[in-house]
């Protein structure tokens, strides 16, 4: 017999709000990131996760405690931690003899693992080694270079994950002067190189600005190791757009050259004959008249 014991109402308004915020939405918020450490993490990894955390603030949580977790063996503890923090992206850093400096990046769908990839970091340069800086919460431009991003199916999936991780907020308009950050991922035969630059817009002879870049950091040279991708079915389910989010074409509304909006309205036929006008006592039928009318109706 299924039990109904744990059907509990939130007792406080605040609790209710928190639960409501965790429910599925038509237009979702920014995916929250969770930074975790495994049994042991090297300095490189610690710096790396700190820097990536700085990049993704305020939509990120960093947990400093060590966890005895191996995500590729058992993902459940990671899922639980993500659920507790309402996060759907995770960065798991651990180092050991067999897999030195391994950074696992993954994402969840509906509280369950969707896909994750493991990188081994070979070379790392942190923010501190560069002078340039950008304001917080800057939405980065993302550039992927190298033919491998398209040719290799595995890398195409990794690209989708990296875009999801680094794209930040979903926006419908952007202030062009505020584009200050670009992250480039270059896929060579053996490495994936992540570079992050500050954009400087310089004057040019045309209307378009001349782009100059300055090193911002972090620089990560990494090798793709183990992967675990979602089944096609699950990915399809995860990529579904709700009906409410799909925009419908606007019918019967047009704009002319002067910018005036024109709308076409369809009106039903108006029954002028039977329409109720103002009631007046003088126009009322007397009882006798009504009787006559009824009788004539009956006779018909």
């Amino acid at each position: 017999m299924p039990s109904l014991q744990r059907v509990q109402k939130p007792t406080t308004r605040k609790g209710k709000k928190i639960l409501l915020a965790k429910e599925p939405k038509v237009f979702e918020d920014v995916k929250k990131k969770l930074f975790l450490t495994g049994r042991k993490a090297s300095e490189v990894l610690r710096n790396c996760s700190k820097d990536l955390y700085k990049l993704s603030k305020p939509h990120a949580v960093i947990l400093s405690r060590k966890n005895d977790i191996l995500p590729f063996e058992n993902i459940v503890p990671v899922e639980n931690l993500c659920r507790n923090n309402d996060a759907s992206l995770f960065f798991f850093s651990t180092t050991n003899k067999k897999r030195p400096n391994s950074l696992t990046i993954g994402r969840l769908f509906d509280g369950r693992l969707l896909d994750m990839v493991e990188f081994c970091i070979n070379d790392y340069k942190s923010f501190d080694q560069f002078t340039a800086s950008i304001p917080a919460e800057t939405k980065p431009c993302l550039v992927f270079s190298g033919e491998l991003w398209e040719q290799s199916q595995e890398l195409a999936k990794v690209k989708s994950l990296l875009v999801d991780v680094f794209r930040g907020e979903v926006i419908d308009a952007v202030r062009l002067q505020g584009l200050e950050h670009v992250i480039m991922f270059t896929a060579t035969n053996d490495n994936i190189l992540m570079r992050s630059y500050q954009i400087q817009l310089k004057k040019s002879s045309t209307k378009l600005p001349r782009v100059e870049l300055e090193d911002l950091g972090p620089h990560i040279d990494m090798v793709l190791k183990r992967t675990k991708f979602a089944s096609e079915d699950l990915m399809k389910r995860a990529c579904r757009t709700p009906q409410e989010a799909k925009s419908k074409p606007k019918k019967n509304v047009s704009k002319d050259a002067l910018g005036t909006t024109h709308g076409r309205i369809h009106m039903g036929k108006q029954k002028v004959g039977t329409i109720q006008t103002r009631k007046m006592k003088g126009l009322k039928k007397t009882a006798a008249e009504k009787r006559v009318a009824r009788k004539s109706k009956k006779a018909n």
Partner: protein
Amino acid sequence: MDILEDILQKEAKKSEKYKTTDVEKNVELELDLGNLLALDTNDLNLQELKSHKEKYLLNLARDNTQLLLNKLWDLPSERREDIVVAKLPAGTLRLPREKPCPKPKPLTKWQEYALEKGIKKKKKTNAVWDDIVQKWIPRFGYKKAELERQKDWVLEVPGNADPMEDQFAKKAEKKKEKVSKNEFQRLRNIAKAKKIKVPKEGLPSVANPSSDLLNTAAKVARVSTASLGKFQPKLPKEKTLKENVIAPKRVKRDHSKISSIDEKSSHLKIIDSILGKKPKLDIEKAVNRQVFQEQHERSEEKKTQKSKGGKKRRKTSIPSKARKGGKISKPRVGKVNTKKGKGGVGGGRKRR
């Protein structure tokens, strides 16, 4: 012509002074402006990458960013809160959602009923004026209970009630029952929404069941066989059933012992009861049927009648009790409210 040359020279100087914004690529970039995303599928210069790694990557990034920004600068712009922004198209790269699409909330039993009947929720005022305390009393929530206590410091004992009965306790009990009924309905709605089958009678699942509850459970389990527990062996220390609450009592009939005379008389009784049936005349039902028929006729007549007339009705010989809103000026007798003399005539329309 001098002027033209001058201008051309100036332009040339200008373009010399500034670096170009053009970038040449063999394969054009795949751009996803909605996500500020660019994909450069051109071959990498691996030699250059090995020898001057950082410089090469910086140049590559600069070129690609330039191309991306060139496209972004071409987008239509708009003024929002005193800032000029470029409107971005929707992103083309499909990315998975964080959580599944929201499903519509299942309706409660009442909501379903209201939808079917077309009942709409009416906005009520937050507070109601009370003449006794001369104050606005909130319908629920903050300060409601306190004001209610002020108002009900004394309670009237109804005429036919036991004078020794505690009216306050009775009121509190009533309130408690209402609350628990509401809670029950809430749980039932949740169970319905989650498609959980709830047992109609018997055993709710409780965290710490009492001995009474466990006894009932044992009883239910005992009779839950095809033979209703007839052949069920007794458990050690099982209490004897005081009464079988669940299964109906089975009346044993010993057919061998019935004499032929008794059998004959019982059969005759049955035949008599069937053949001797007389149709019952239910006057109220008959009257109602008549009234309905007449009303139906009249409404049909009205529908066919195009011109909008008054609402005058023919006189009928129907007793006034069965009519509602008719025009017979017979005083009502039956339904005078004897408890509280505020309204005088209770129910239906007021007459003068």
